[in-house]
Structures are given as C-alpha cells and as structure tokens.
C-alpha cells in the first residue's frame, strides 16, 4: 500500500476511532470482545483501503465496513482468540482510564445494555444515528431508504427512552 493511502488510513483512524469503538461495544459481549471486534474491523478497513475511492466520505465508508464486520463476526465465536494487528510490532491497546463521572457512566452502560437488546438491524441504524450521521448517510451505509431510516429511528428512540426512563 502506498504512503498516501497509509496516511489517509491513519488520519481517518484518528478522527473516527472512538466512533468505531462505540459501534463495536454494542455488538460485543464485554471489553475483551470489543477489543477483538475493533481489531477485526481495523484489519478489514486496512485491507479494503486500496478499494477506497477518494470521492466518498471516508467516515461513512468506515462505518459501512464496521457494521458488516460486526454482523459477520458473531462475538461469541471470536472467543478469546489472540489477534494482533501490528503497527511496527506494537499492538493496539485499548485501555480504560478511571471513570470520573460515575453517574454518566451508569447511564452509558444502561444505554448500551438497551441497545444490545435491539435486533441487529436496529442496532446498526441507531448506532449511526447516535454518531450524528445524517439520515442520508445512514441510508447509504445500511441500504435502506431515508424514509425508512427516519421511521426506524423514531421507533427505536422511543424504545430506548422507555428503557432508560428510570435513569434520565
């Protein structure tokens, strides 16, 4: 892969890493699974880089790969296989810092729990919405029409708000 693509990849990664991680969390069972899943996502994005057309939004393109990989890899089957994406022999590390805002953390955990209860399709749509993607882009990533996206989001949001009601 040429240097330009590598730079595009690394810059996009820097910009979107948290978003990709957040999407992975709802498809993963626990923190270790999230790490495995994210690694698999990054490997697939890296492998697909030569096919990336510069005219498309790289963020949307990355979300598309992320959702497809999350769908393909059932978390329980990733297991605890050790996978390493090496960056000059340095592994990717996902580490936790001290949770300073416990209340917010609790809400976040509850929100993730609620999202995990949704079906795979709804998970895909709502995670993109929560990443503040416009309906047009959600439609481009998922392949469903903008109207259907809007209807789905309204329905899922109600479900989530009901699920979170005791906390917010």
């Amino acid at each position, binding site marked *: 892969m040429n240097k330009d693509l590598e730079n595009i990849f690394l810059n996009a990664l820097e910009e979107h890493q948290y978003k990709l991680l957040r999407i992975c969390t709802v498809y993963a069972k626990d923190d270790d699974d999230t790490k495995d899943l994210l690694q698999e996502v990054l490997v697939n994005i890296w492998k697909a880089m030569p096919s990336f057309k510069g005219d498309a939004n790289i963020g949307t393109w990355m979300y598309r790969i992320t959702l497809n990989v999350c769908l393909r890899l059932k978390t329980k089957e990733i297991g605890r296989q050790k996978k390493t994406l090496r960056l000059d022999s340095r592994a990717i590390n996902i580490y936790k810092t001290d949770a300073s805002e416990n209340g917010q953390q609790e809400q976040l955990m509850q929100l993730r729990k609620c999202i995990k209860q949704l079906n795979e399709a709804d998970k895909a749509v709502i995670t993109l919405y*929560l990443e503040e993607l416009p309906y047009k882009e959600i439609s481009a990533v*998922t392949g469903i029409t903008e109207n259907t996206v809007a209807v789905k989001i309204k329905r899922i949001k109600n479900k989530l708000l009901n699920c979170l009601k005791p906390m917010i």
Partner: protein
Amino acid sequence: MEDELIKIWQSSPKAEQIKFEKSRLILDMQSSLDRFHRFIKYRIIHDQIACIIVIAGFIYGIYLVPPILSKIACFFIVLWAIWYLLQLVGSKKMKPTSVTLNYLEYLEKNRDYLTYLKETIIRSMYSYAILALPAYFLFISGVYFDGLSDITFFIKLIFLGIFVHIGAYAYSKWEVKKVDTYGLKKIDELIEVMEE
C-alpha cells in the same frame, strides 16, 4: 430528551481510550472465520480433494479395468466428479468478500452465497443418487459379469454402495439443515427487519 441519548452515547471516550502507535503498518494477521464458515470451507476443500482423487483414480480405471461395463462406469464417475468439482469452484466465486457494500447489500450477498451452497449440496445429493450410484453398480456388475468376483462379494458390494449412499444422503440433509438454521434463517430475518 432525545439529545440526551446522543450525549450519553458520546460520553464514552472519556472512559475509554484507544492508543494507536503511528508508524509503518505491518499487517500479518489472517482474519479468522467463524465456526460456520470454517465448516463450509473445510467441507469444500475436502470435497475438492475427493473429486480430484476420484477423477485421477477413475481415469486410470478406464485404461486399467478390463470389463467394458466397468470402463463405461469409470467414465460416468469421472464426468460426475468433474461436474461436482466445477460446482464447488463456483461456490468460491459466490462468496462475498467485500465488506465495503452497504449493510443490506452485504446481507443479500451472504444470502445468495448460502442459497448457492445449499443448492450445491442438494444437487450433489441427487446427482450422486442419479449418476454416481448407478455408475458404481455398473462398475461392480462389470467386474462380476467378467467373472472377477463371486456372487457373495458382488452382493456385499451392492449393500456397501447402498449404505454409503444412505450415509451421504443423511450427512447432506444435516448440512442443508445447518445452512438453513445457522445462516439463511437469520439473514432472512435481518433483511425482513431492515425492510420493515
């Protein structure tokens, strides 16, 4: 209230951080397939090897085996094995490799692939019964009628063929069920939910 959801969702980076070391990438990782895809992959490889052995063995048999009926049988078995091998090669082409499709397209491609696999298994099941098994009977008949085996051995070979066929049929049925249960059903459900 609705913005609250986005706010909660995006609060996660404060608690979790990813550290990436920026440097030249060396990618040495092979993406592992899940158990189901491994099962399919090994089955295809196993059958391809079996086909190649059958083709080589029975082409040799056409020249080597003296009875004419057995030669004809060898020819049919070779034809069947070539046909099946081509089906297996075709299934590889159908496998969705691109993860850059949109979600719905990706699901549909996976559905097409699993449907093709299922149809290939069913076709192989029937082709075995229609072509390979009669060819096998023709082969042992040639051997028997040429006086190369006695009636007891001939009958044993007939039963062996029938039992192997029943075994292969049951195994294929189990595989079809597995494709249905583990793959097609779930994908169909997802597509249905997506299009709701």
